[in-house]
């Protein structure tokens, strides 16, 4: 493990900034929780450890573990195939497509999945045409896993791929010159590098699945499939027992914090210098070794992601766009969606970068405090964040006017955990590579960030920013709480239209949301990566 110098003078600001972010997160996340827990008397309808809750807890952890293991495991062959094969047609488009599920509201993803795997879905049509036996119904644990993998596997691929792209060119060349076979590439280069990203990817997916709600209930097939999040929702909404809801959220946070800390033990630090170039020429790139396997991995992984998205697209094409596009509300929703997503993403990425650069400068214990701060937000149900924030906002400010800020801040909080696993390893690597030199040149603060970190970390920033933009785009829970006639986003509009039977309109809105996701992801990666590509 790389040795760290004792913090020198210039580190103090970095660490202090991270503490500020940590306390801000705590204030925004925990204060509402406590406020809710203490503001109302609990009717005491439910205790924390009755069999109902314990059963739910078991199911929550089980499905989240399975979902995370599956998503990460499936991402490994696809990420390595994509890293190796840099030049097949449609690679860029495929990578953009892999970013889209993050930005889809869960209901739309579920309907997309049903269009493919459902009783009257695409696959069954094909099977019926070929006179083959039909698929079993997608409901139950397998439905939940299918949907969770659809959401999270593409994100895992992007994160692992980003890690593989930090492997220095010389290593690939060396491997070629030493006569590595595919299995040696995997053992000595691909796996050790992906392994660095896996704990972060795994915990992120795990937490997302712990807090999954719509997917679990809709595809779960019955109340035996219930997550803690459902119990929290029930406690807060139907039983209006905020104290119980806060306690349940506390239980969820405590359990996952434990798991995160355990996982951190597996993350090891190995310094590999960051690179300026975006695409590495892999000497083994057109190797015929494993070509069939790689092609299969890319094809199946691609189809798995593309088919439900395609279904959303084709459903959307049936909408009456003449009317839809003439509707002012749609444009207002698209505008607010973009504004909220970009602002929240900017906030989230900045906060994540602040934490990441401090983690790079910290010993293990302090690093894990910062890391937890950046991750645990995901475990506080948005409904609780929103309700708590509402309570505070309502008692102190004009709710109509501060709704926008509350929505942006909560969105940023919820997006932060997506930026951190990308930025943290990148900053750590950069720190280990440049620290001595930068210190010796007396470079500090922002000028150091601008000259040293920013140019080399740009690809990581692009990915982190993209992930946070998309996650905010698809967000629904918070805006539903704060939204008003004026403040409306595309997901909210979509749910509203469904709420009054207008599934066709909703499909059109979903299509527009999907295109917005694609456009933003294209724009962000183009602007941040290619416009500033260093001259050779």
């Amino acid at each position, binding site marked *: *493990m*790389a*040795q760290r110098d004792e913090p020198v003078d210039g580190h103090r600001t970095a660490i202090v900034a991270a503490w500020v972010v940590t306390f801000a997160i705590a204030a925004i996340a925990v204060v509402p929780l406590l406020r809710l827990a203490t503001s109302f008397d609990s009717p005491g309808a439910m205790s924390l450890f009755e069999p109902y809750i314990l059963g739910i807890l078991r199911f929550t952890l089980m499905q989240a573990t399975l979902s995370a293991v599956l998503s990460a495991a499936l991402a490994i062959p696809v990420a390595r195939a994509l890293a190796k094969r840099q030049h097949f047609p449609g690679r860029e488009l495929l990578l953009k497509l892999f970013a889209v599920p993050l930005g889809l509201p869960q209901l739309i993803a579920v309907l997309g999945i049903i269009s493919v795997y459902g009783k009257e879905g695409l696959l069954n049509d094909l099977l019926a045409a070929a006179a083959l036996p039909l698929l079993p119904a997608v409901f139950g644990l397998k439905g939940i896993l299918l949907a969770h993998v659809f959401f999270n596997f593409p994100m895992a691929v992007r994160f692992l791929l980003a890690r593989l792209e930090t492997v*220095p*060119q*010389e*290593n690939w*060349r*060396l*491997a*070629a*010159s*030493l*006569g*590595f*076979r595919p*299995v*040696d590439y995997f*053992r*000595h*280069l691909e796996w*050790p590098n992906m392994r660095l990203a896996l704990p972060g990817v795994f915990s992120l997916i795990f937490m997302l699945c712990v807090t999954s709600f719509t997917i679990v209930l809709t595809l779960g097939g019955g109340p035996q499939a219930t997550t803690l999040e459902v119990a929290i929702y029930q406690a807060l909404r139907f039983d209006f027992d905020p104290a119980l809801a806060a306690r349940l959220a506390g239980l969820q946070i405590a359990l996952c914090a434990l798991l995160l800390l355990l996982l951190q033990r597996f993350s*090891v630090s*190995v*310094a*590999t*210098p960051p690179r300026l170039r975006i695409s590495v*020429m892999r*000497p083994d790139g057109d190797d015929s070794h494993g070509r069939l396997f790689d092609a299969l991995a890319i094809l199946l992984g691609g189809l798995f992601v593309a088919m439900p998205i395609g279904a959303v697209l084709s459903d959307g094409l049936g909408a009456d766009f003449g009317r839809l596009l003439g509707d002012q509300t749609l444009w207002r929703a698209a505008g607010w969606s973009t504004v909220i997503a970009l602002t929240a993403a900017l906030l989230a990425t900045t906060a994540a970068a602040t934490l990441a650069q401090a983690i790079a400068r910290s010993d293990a214990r302090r690093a894990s405090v910062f890391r937890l701060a950046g991750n645990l937000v995901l475990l506080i149900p948005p409904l609780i964040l929103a309700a708590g924030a509402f309570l505070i906002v309502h008692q102190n400010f004009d709710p109509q006017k501060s709704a926008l800020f509350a929505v942006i801040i909560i969105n940023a909080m919820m997006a932060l955990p997506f930026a951190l696993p990308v930025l943290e390893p990148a900053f750590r690597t950069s720190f*280990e590579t440049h620290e001595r030199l930068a210190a010796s040149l007396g470079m500090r603060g922002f000028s150091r960030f601008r000259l040293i970190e920013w140019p080399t970390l740009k690809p990581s920033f692009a990915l982190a920013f993209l992930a946070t933009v998309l996650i905010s785009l698809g967000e629904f829970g918070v805006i539903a709480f704060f939204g008003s006639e004026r403040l409306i986003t595309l997901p909210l509009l979509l749910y509203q239209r469904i709420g009054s039977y207008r599934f066709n309109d909703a499909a059109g809105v979903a299509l527009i949301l999907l295109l917005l996701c694609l456009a933003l992801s294209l724009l962000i990666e183009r602007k941040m990566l290619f416009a500033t590509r260093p001259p*050779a």
Partner: protein
Amino acid sequence: MTNAVLQIVALTFRYEDMQMCFDLDVERGEFVAVMGPSGAGKSTLLSLIAGFEKPLAGRVVWEGTDISTWRPADRPLSILFQDNNLFAHLDVFTNVALGISPSAKLNDEQRKVVATAIGRVGLTSYAARLPGELSGGERQRAALARILVRRKPLLLLDEPFAALGPALKKEMIELVKELQVELGLTILLVTHDPLDAKVAASHTAFIHRGRILAKRKTEELFKSRDIPALRDYLGET
């Protein structure tokens, strides 16, 4: 001129706007410095010889055989880069062992060979360390140990000592020269520093805008007046 063990014949490559075409003969046991301004195509030349890049045309001939379509691993050479010559998560011993078998699974005899090589470069007590725990010079020594066990007759050095201090650099060059004698190596050293060429190389080739303008005995090349680009490069007008 058939003594040449390595012949590079009209080896053509294009990188962005620059068209390159290399011709070079190297005799067995020569230590050739490939010198020139940055961006002249020095590293590209090594990449082409090593097989990391595919030439548009031309040949790389080793002992009379055209090897330009061979896979990198099959070519009779080892290469040492300026950086990242080691796999960061593997200890020194395993990194060296990869020179014998890509699976790094060795029998007792092979392990002895690896240990000897590590001893030869003076890293015996560092065998279990990770590259991140070594200094820059130690890392390059470890990489040299792997070259030792690979026993390939041609060694390509891509500015491997550029980041080292003068004393350390001198020490490393001495070590390489010793290994050259022990193993009978033919060496190409890419450098932008004329001093390296003077200290290390029996011969020096001058490369300019994708062409090799001359290859002569080192002291002759530095004395020669017939290559204006070289005079400009050396700052002697």
